[in-house]
C-alpha cells in the first residue's frame, strides 16, 4: 500500500459533523476516492462537498500541490489535499 494522502478539512465542514477531525489520512488514488472515504467515516459528508452531477460543489475548492482539481484528479502517494470553502455569502 502506498503512503496515504493527507486531507485537510475546513472548520465550517467539520462543525457539521460532531467528532470529525480537521486533518485526516486516507488511502486514496483520486479525489473521488477521498470523498468516498470521508463519507464512510462521517456519513453525509460527501453530500456536503459534492453534488450529483457528480462534481465538487461550486463554492468548494480542492487543491492538490497548489492546483485546483476535480473529482477525477489522480493523487500522488502522500499528497497534501486541501479542501477549502470559497469566498461566498453575504
Amino acid at each position, binding site marked *: 500500500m502506498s503512503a496515504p494522502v493527507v486531507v485537510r478539512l475546513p472548520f*465550517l*465542514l467539520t462543525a457539521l459533523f460532531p467528532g470529525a477531525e480537521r486533518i485526516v489520512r486516507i488511502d486514496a488514488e483520486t479525489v473521488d476516492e477521498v470523498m468516498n472515504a470521508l463519507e464512510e467515516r462521517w456519513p*453525509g459528508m460527501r453530500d*456536503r*462537498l459534492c453534488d*450529483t452531477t*457528480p462534481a465538487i*460543489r461550486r463554492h*468548494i475548492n480542492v487543491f492538490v500541490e497548489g492546483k485546483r482539481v476535480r473529482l477525477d484528479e489522480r493523487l500522488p502517494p502522500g499528497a497534501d489535499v486541501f479542501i477549502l470553502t470559497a469566498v461566498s455569502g453575504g
Partner: protein
Amino acid sequence: MGVAVLIGSKKGAFLLESDSARRDWRVRGPYCEHWPLTHVAADPTQQTIYATGGNAWFGPAVWKSNDGGAAWTHSSKGLAYPQGETPVQCAWVAHAAHGRLYVGVEPAGLFVSDDGGESFREVEGLRRHPSRPQWQPGGIGLVLHSIVSDPVDPRRLWVGISSVGVFYTEDGGETWHPRNSGTRCDYLPEGERYPELGQCVHNLTLASGHSNRLYQQNHCGMYRSDDGGASWQSIEDGLPSSFGFPVAVHPRDADTLFFLPLNGDTKGRYPPDARAAVWRSRDGGAHWRDGRAGLPQAGAYFGVMRQAMATDAFEPAGVYFGTSNGSVYASRDEGETWECIARDLPAISSVETMMAN
C-alpha cells in the same frame, strides 16, 4: 401552554418563545450553523422542528431538532435527482403530515421522508407530468415552495410551484393535475391570461377544518377555491393591491384569513404607501379590513416573504409576520393590534408557530 414562533432567516433559525399571555418574548438562536434557511416548521404530533435550506458551500439539507431547538442534526440522504440531471440546489419547504415529512426543492420537485427526515425519496410522479418541459423558473428560481395536505385523506396533496402553478394529486403522488383554472397571468398577452399552467402562485393554504377550501396568494391576485382547486375565484376586491406573498388562515374559522398586500411587482414590493397593514377577512374574502395599530405607518419599506406569516392556536388567535429587514410583529387579538416582538434579526424568510405544553 406556550407558543414558539419559528423563524427561518438568511442566517439560521431563531425561536421566539412566550406563554399564553404572549406579552414577554424570549429569543433563542441562531441555530443550524448560520445556514440560509427558507423554511422552519414543526411536526406538531412529534414536537419536532424541521428547517430547510441551501448553503452556497454545502448544498441542500433538511435540519431537525427533537428537543425544542437545543440540538440539531442535518441530512440530505436521498434528497437528490439522478446523476446527470441538474442537482437539487435547495431544500425549500417542509410539511409534516400523516406521519410523513414532505420537502419541496429547487429545481422544482417533491421528496418524502418516512423516517422523520433521516432519509428521503422523490415523489417521482410530479416531475413525470407531461408539462414538465414547459416549466419555467420565476424570480426565485424553479421552486416548489408550497405543500398542502388533506387532514383526513393522506393521498390528497396540493403543491405550488413558481411560476408554474398549483398541482393536485389524489393518489398519493402517482399522478398530478394542474389546478389553476381562474387564476390569471397578467404578464401574458391579452386573451392568453388564463392558461392551464404557468401561473405564478406565491403561497397556498387550506382553510381550517376543510378538505376542499383553499386560499392562494398569487403574483396576480388573491383567490379562494371551494372545490379543492378545480376552480378559483378572485377575492382581491377591497384590498389595496393584488400583489403579495403570504396567506395565513385562522386556526378554527374557515372564513377568517389574512393577507399582507405589497404595493406591486414593479413598485418596490413593500407595503402600499410604506404603511404596514395586515388585511383580514371574516367572510372568506368577500370583505376586508386592515389592521394597522402598532405597525409602522411611515417608512415601512420591507418585504414579507411567502412563508413569513402564521397564526397560533390560542383563543383569540395570534398572528405573526416577519420582515425582510429582520423584524417580527405579533398580534394577540387576531390582527386588530400589533407589536414588534423582535428586531434586527437577519432577513426573515419564514414564520411558523409551534404550540408547547
